[in-house]
């Protein structure tokens, strides 16, 4: 078991496990966010619960952050190693003949998602941590009501930010279109269920980012129309 992470297969396995973890998190994030469209009151209540419950805040949140960092760092490590494995590149290489654009450009779609996450952290996570743990206000209240829905709606006022969010989710879809079923292959799950797994992962890869785009556009258009 020792040294599994130093092998090529071990690193891919770890990459796949962190990917599955982030995929589950993304679904949970989407389920909470879509509540903002259908029921702002429930969205506020769930947001407050997630923002104050000790298990989420002190155990799941650090695991999530570690998972995100691990996935990105390991992605870069693998990319650097892979680049070194072909020092002289081909003069002519016809990649489209045998593989999808998504599969060949995971590092670029990943970098766009990383850039988006920096914006997302500045928009939501850092102010949230500041309010709760620096200022010390755990009430979740502002002017006598929960602040979560109001803050969310405010962020989607600027069309440039909405555009950046939508673009990032397009890249997330591209990343997931290859990454989701690729993670199954990395853990060795290529069997009679593969066809079903591929269909499900494609559905997820398109459906969830599309849902996030819908949420951003919904709140933007609701304010501007």
């Amino acid at each position: 078991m020792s040294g599994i992470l130093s092998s090529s297969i071990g690193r891919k396995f770890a990459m796949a496990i962190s990917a599955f973890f982030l995929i589950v998190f993304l679904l949970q994030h989407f389920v909470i966010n879509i509540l903002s469209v259908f029921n702002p009151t429930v969205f506020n209540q769930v947001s407050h619960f997630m923002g104050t419950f000790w298990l989420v805040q002190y155990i799941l949140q650090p695991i999530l952050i570690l998972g995100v960092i691990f996935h990105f760092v390991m992605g870069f490590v693998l990319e650097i190693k892979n680049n070194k494995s072909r020092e002289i590149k081909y003069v002519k290489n016809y990649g489209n003949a045998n593989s999808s654009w998504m599969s060949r450009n995971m590092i670029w779609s990943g970098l766009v998602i990383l850039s988006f996450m920096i914006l997302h952290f500045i928009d939501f996570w850092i102010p949230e941590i500041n309010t709760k743990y620096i200022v010390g206000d755990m009430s979740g209240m502002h002017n006598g009501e929960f602040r979560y829905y109001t803050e969310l709606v405010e962020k989607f006022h600027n069309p440039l930010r909405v555009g950046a969010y939508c673009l990032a989710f397009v890249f997330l879809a591209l990343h997931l279109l290859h990454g989701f079923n690729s993670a199954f292959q990395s853990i060795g799950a290529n069997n009679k269920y593969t066809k079903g797994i591929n269909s499900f992962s494609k559905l997820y890869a398109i459906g969830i980012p599309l849902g996030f785009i819908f949420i951003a556009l919904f709140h933007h258009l609701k304010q501007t129309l």
Partner: protein
Amino acid sequence: MNLTLKIWRQKNANDKGKMVDYQVSDISPDMSFLEMLDVLNNELIEKGDSPVAFDHDCREGICGMCSLYINGEAHGPGRKITTCQLHMRMFKDDDTIYIEPFRAKAFPVIKDLVIDRSAFDRVQYAGGFISVNTSGNTQDANSIPISKHAADEAMDAATCIGCGACVATCKNSSAMLFVGAKVSQYALLPQGKVEATDRVLNMIHQMDAEGFGNCTNTGACEIECPKGISLENIARMNREYLKASLKG
């Protein structure tokens, strides 16, 4: 057919190398790609130039010696064929054809289009075998029952000819299709199970030591493999490796 060839020329392993343009004319569409290169080499020899060095042996798609990255694809534009099985009818008159050696850090160029694929041999030496007593007492072939399904899958994996197209075509120069096939052909059979743990650990260790990249599941290797080796073999190798790692 009249063609423009852009061919990688490199005097030796230490030479920097460059693409050189050649014109060939009156090429028959029924020639194989290697025969077309033979025509070019005859012309070069007659002119007193150095012929283009390229690997070839059986010329019937079995030995895996012919390599070549043709117009951006391993073994050229055909599917499930080696370069010796690629015919000039796949190209058009006045085409420009790029011919490069298979590129990978683990496959250094020896001269022109000839590469050193001994890294594959070393991976095989590390575990791609079963230890049996060959001093006599031949066992009856039917003494160990093997299901038809397992036998077929093992045979499919064993059709790998070790040509290196998977490495050449992979954007990461990963050898996992090759190693996956070699691991699978034994893992699927009872005779191979005895040394399964050591085999997969040693072969993967050697594969990494040779400098091959990681698999990112683009699937390009499966498409370009002249023998149609399936990605299922990589998944099986991954399972075997994880199982072996847990065992110790």
